[in-house]
């Protein structure tokens, strides 16, 4: 199917009419972030981004592409796993404890422009929150309702490596509709793919037509170009055992010399899900509430138990994050926790590159640099 760029607003209107709150990329504060959208004009029309380790910059394109950029600091977990969420409120009373108000129900979202890596990230979080012995019922409710309009990337950034992680750039499942933006000569259109019945129903109300073979080929070319321009690669062969074997590798000390434990990587990572639970009360002690908030394994608090933190050193905290993301996640949830979006590399203030760290461990495994010191060196005293 093909949708002309002029008709994209109709798609937005149909979704709004069905009660969806549109959310998607928009320019704000010098970056492309995810926020509520009112119209197509809110999209970053004519904007692109330049990303490298520790670097993010917007730049103007010389065309009017609506989705001509890679991913920014936000991910969809902003909506599915709200950073601050009240779990319950309660009030003391003579007869008991009563709920004071119902927590606000999240709007029904339509996500516009979800990248393939992000679809994988959402699927990964689905496994965490919906497939374990306990289900997060709030996540389930928001998740079931979400309408997803995916976007096949026309742009790879300097830190992208979805190809290595086999998570893109083409979206293959998990969407209601998928768009590939094509700008060719005078033409500006979206190649559309239908993912679900719900997607087909929505599309039925929007002006569209069958795609020609040439239009499909053009869209394929867009995606192929993106795949060829990945900024990074990650060798994933036996990565779980590699990291399990090397928990004492000196590279962790090396990273610790650079890592500020600022936690940016965990905030921008689309799969990081760690949260803390805080209980609070009003000044009179009459009303209590429990709030869930995003947390990060990089804080000293995270592993604190009576008297001290288990992971006191920055080295142990970086090791925890990286080993969890690339190795223990596989044992816990059956897939890698990393989708190759590159955000952690871009948003690290000191440009620590997870692909480089893996490379370094792999390269120096078992060499002189890592062999534990043997005490029997022959030497004579002078």
């Amino acid at each position, binding site marked *: 199917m093909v949708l002309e760029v002029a008709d994209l607003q109709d798609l937005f209107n149909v979704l709004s009419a069905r009660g969806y709150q549109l959310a998607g990329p928009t320019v704000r504060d010098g970056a492309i972030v995810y926020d509520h959208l009112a119209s197509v004009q809110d999209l970053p029309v004519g904007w692109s981004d330049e990303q490298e380790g520790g670097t993010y910059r917007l730049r103007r394109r010389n065309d009017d592409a609506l989705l001509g950029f890679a991913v920014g600091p936000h991910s969809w977990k902003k909506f599915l796993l709200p950073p601050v969420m009240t779990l319950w409120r309660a009030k003391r009373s003579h007869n008991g404890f009563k709920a004071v108000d119902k927590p606000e129900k999240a709007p029904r979202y339509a996500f516009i422009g979800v990248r393939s890596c992000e679809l994988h990230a959402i699927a990964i979080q689905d496994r965490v929150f919906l497939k374990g012995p306990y289900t997060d019922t709030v996540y389930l409710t928001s998740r079931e309702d979400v309408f997803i309009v995916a976007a096949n990337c026309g742009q790879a950034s300097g830190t992208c490596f979805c190809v290595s992680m086999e998570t893109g750039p083409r979206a293959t499942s998990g969407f209601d509709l998928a768009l590939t933006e094509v700008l060719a000569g005078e033409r500006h259109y979206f190649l559309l793919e239908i993912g679900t019945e719900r997607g087909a129903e929505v599309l039925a109300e929007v002006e569209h037509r069958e795609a020609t073979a040439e239009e499909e080929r053009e869209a394929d070319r867009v995606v192929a170009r993106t795949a060829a321009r990945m900024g990074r690669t990650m060798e994933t062969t036996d990565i779980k055992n590699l990291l399990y074997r090397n928990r004492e590798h000196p590279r962790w000390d090396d990273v610790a010399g650079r890592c500020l434990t600022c936690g940016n990587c965990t905030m921008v990572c689309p799969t990081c899900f760690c949260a803390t639970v805080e209980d609070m009360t009003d000044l009179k002690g009459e009303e209590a509430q429990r709030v869930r908030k995003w947390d990060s394994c990089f804080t000293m608090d995270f*592993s*604190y*138990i*009576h*008297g*001290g*933190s*288990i992971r*006191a050193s920055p080295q142990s905290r970086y090791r925890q994050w990286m080993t969890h993301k690339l190795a223990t996640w596989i044992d816990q949830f059956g897939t890698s926790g990393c989708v190759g979006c590159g955000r952690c590399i871009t948003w690290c203030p000191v440009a620590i590159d997870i692909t480089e760290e893996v490379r370094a461990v792999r390269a120096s495994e078992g060499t002189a640099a890592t062999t534990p*010191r043997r*005490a*029997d*060196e*022959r*030497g*004579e*005293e*002078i």
Partner: protein
Amino acid sequence: MIRGLETLLAEHPFFKGLEPTYLSFIAGCGANVTFQAGEYIFREGDPADHFYIIRHGKVQREIFAPERGPLPIDTLAAGDVLGWSWLFPPYRRFSDARALELTRAIALDGACLRDKCDEDHHLGYELMRRLAPLAMKRLQAMMLQFLDLYGHARTS
């Protein structure tokens, strides 16, 4: 002037009075080693095949407790013997040992010595005769440490 290991051993109080043939053999199982300040000499659970006669420097034995970090248990310096687990099965290190400052020691191959002691019981006796009092003294000191003497000192 380069001084051989045998000479160093002969001068060390631990080996005082040991027959020269034994000294020679032991020197054959030994090597000079140096540890930098902060370097771990061995870790809890490591296989224990060597023991060390400290020539100079300072070594701290530690036990790592989660959320507390490495807890010092005792300190060894020049003249002390580091490492006892090589003597008896399961030949596994009881604690961590870390050099607190630049430390030079003679590393002795405990596995080699064990075999030799099995063949030559007199050597075994001579080694045990030197090692046992060191162990006993250390144990006695620790027992006194446990009495928490300072905690009960009178303030007046």
